[in-house]
């Protein structure tokens, strides 16, 4: 039997959200509240860390409730769930940033979390200084950093600027240096929360390589992500969190299917109306799937046309905004990806976006898609610089194969794409090819 690396026993965590403010409709009441204001404020602030033991308080939320699981040494466990399901809280407890309200966790060996890379980085210090500072903060000793320093700098790819204050670095360089330090910590347990969203493609490849290495070297990895294809390819098993409870744990495919499938209705239209746009330059507002008549739809005949319509709001005008979507098949993983800059990239990367709401419509290449359930994830970023928005909602649609040959032949077909190829007959006598008569061929 393999040894356990992490044992989590019934952990719960509660948070207190701010108490409701009293409202006054009279001048006297308002004046009185001003006088009482410091006192009530004191009570409110104090209550942030005080709880009634009977647990009937209105403003308490349980971010996690009775979570138990075990992870074997060397396993890569994926943690999936919607926003607010408690994933971050769980990671915070496992990385010891906050204590659980009840329950117990046992972890063997050094834990390192990539919840946030570059903690403690100071803009006035040089790259070299920051490597040491950040390295010791995340738990390396000076000796260890001395030994790995060249490797870290090589990995980051910014050898030339290592003695420059990092305030002169670009955002990308900053992240690369930070990730390089984090990637060299060699912990027994590594906790990762979607840090791969930044950096250029070359660097991302390096990071994934490093993660693979970590996984293969017998370390235990906890991986939190919204990216189901990454979870499917990196994790053997997964855990699903829903409203602070663990609702599924087991082989990744099953858990991901449960997360995406059973609990999810087909969605042909999703919208984000929230007004919380603080710090956002761009917000993806709405996405719709339209059939050939232009009406919202979530089940399609593979023969017909499907269009995706994306609406986003530019909040802060700027250059270089890109929007990008992925179509993911539940059975085959990531099918394809498309982005705004695909066509005319040289012109579009310098495009200036005025404040306002924009809508784009894209025809999906249904002809090559397989039947089955698919979902679409939409994100926006300035390539190589920053993430702008990750759309919280996913479109979820089903492609139905009404009259494909295998339905008629009562036979299955394998592979991630559909292609109907003409079989041209070659004549044995003169090696001539007789053209396939495609006037009869009506399938896309």
């Amino acid at each position, binding site marked *: 039997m393999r040894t356990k690396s992490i044992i989590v026993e019934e952990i719960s965590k509660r948070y207190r959200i701010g108490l409701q403010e009293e409202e006054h409709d009279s001048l006297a009441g308002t004046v009185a509240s001003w006088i009482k204001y410091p006192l009530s404020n004191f009570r409110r602030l104090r209550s942030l860390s005080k709880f009634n033991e009977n647990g009937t308080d209105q403003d308490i939320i349980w971010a996690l409730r009775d979570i138990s699981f075990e992870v074997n040494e060397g396993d890569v466990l994926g943690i999936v769930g919607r926003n607010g399901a408690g994933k971050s809280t769980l990671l915070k*407890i*496992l990385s010891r*940033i906050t204590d659980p309200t009840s329950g117990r966790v*046992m*972890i*063997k060996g050094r834990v390192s979390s990539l919840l946030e890379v570059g903690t403690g980085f100071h803009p*006035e210090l040089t790259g070299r200084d920051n490597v040491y500072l950040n390295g010791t*903060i995340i738990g390396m000793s000076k000796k260890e950093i001395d030994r790995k320093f060249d490797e870290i700098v090589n990995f980051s790819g910014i050898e030339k600027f290592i003695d420059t204050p990092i305030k002169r670095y670009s955002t990308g360089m900053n992240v690369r240096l930070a990730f390089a330090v984090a990637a060299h910590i060699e912990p027994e347990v590594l906790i990762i929360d979607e840090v791969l969203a930044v950096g250029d493609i070359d660097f991302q490849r390096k990071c994934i390589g490093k993660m693979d290495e970590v996984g293969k070297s017998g370390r235990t990895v906890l991986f939190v992500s919204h990216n189901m294809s990454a979870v499917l390819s990196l994790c053997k098993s997964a855990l699903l969190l829903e409203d602070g409870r663990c609702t599924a744990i087991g082989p990744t495919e099953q858990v991901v299917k449960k997360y995406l499938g059973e609990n999810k209705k087909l969605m042909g239209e999703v919208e984000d109306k929230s007004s919380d746009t603080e710090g956002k330059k761009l917000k993806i507002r709405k996405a719709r799937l339209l059939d050939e008549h232009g009406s919202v739809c979530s089940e399609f005949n593979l023969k017909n046309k499907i269009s995706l319509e994306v609406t986003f709001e530019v909040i802060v005008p700027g250059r270089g905004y890109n929007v990008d979507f992925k179509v993911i098949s539940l059975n085959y993983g990531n099918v394809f990806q498309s982005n705004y800059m695909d066509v005319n990239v040289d012109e579009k990367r310098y495009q200036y976006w005025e404040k306002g709401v924009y809508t784009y419509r894209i025809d999906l290449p249904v002809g090559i898609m397989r039947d089955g359930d698919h979902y679409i994830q939409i994100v926006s970023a300035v390539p190589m610089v920053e993430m702008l928005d990750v759309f919280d909602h996913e479109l979820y649609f089903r492609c139905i194969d009404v009259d494909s040959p295998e339905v008629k032949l009562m036979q299955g077909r394998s592979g991630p794409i559909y292609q109907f190829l003409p079989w041209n007959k070659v004549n044995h006598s003169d090696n001539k090819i007789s053209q396939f008569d495609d006037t009869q061929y009506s399938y896309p």
Partner: protein
Amino acid sequence: MNSDQKLTIIKPKSGWQLIEWKELKEYRDMFFFLVWRDIKVRYAQSVLGVGWAVIQPVFSMIVFTIVFGNLAKIESDGVPYAIFSFTALVPWTFFANSLTASTTSLNNMITKIYFPRLILPISSILSKSVDFAISMVVLFGLMIWFQVVPTLWIFFLPYLILILMITSLGFGMWLSALTVQYRDIRYGLQFGVQLLMYAAPVVYPASLVPEQYRLLYALNPMVGVIEGFRSALLATNPMPWDFIITGTISTVIIALTGALYFKRREKYFADVI
């Protein structure tokens, strides 16, 4: 589970527990780099650089000498008022700066990564000791200028400095833990420190304090430290043992309660900051 690797157990922390020295020791490198960062960053991109560590107490001394020494004619135990006040300003400036630094020491780093939280206030205070060392050098320079001969009690200074450090740390732990939840501490401290200065013999000699209030007065550990500095370096009075012993006791109490309070609040830091 086999036992060759460190086993971490995470569970709700309960009750009152003291400082975990072993863990602090494991993080000594982080400690060193945080102190070093504070020092290096503080005077980055400034023309005078470390000179600022000298300017603050020296200018206070000049103003005090004019206002309290020359205009108000406060007595200064028989030594020039300038050196009289500067001897007090050196430990006092360290104390005041430490308190201010500790209230801002718990930053949002604690919501991102685990490390012993105590490192932050301690390192913020330790980084101020460089300023302290520099102004000590200035103090010795002034003593030569004013031709003041120190007593043999100069060898007692390390003890006084230790008390100074522990007092700063004790208050630092209290204040940093309180500031996380109550921002008022940070704002209040700005002028609180200025007012507190008058509760210590910085601009006047402790001999002005009426006899019956001496014990109460000495509860402020800075009284023993400052008067001890003056006795050792300026030979103004015999060593004020009553101040020093009372001050030591209250320092130990402040530091112990500070450590306990900090430890007790620690688990909420990441949730309420």
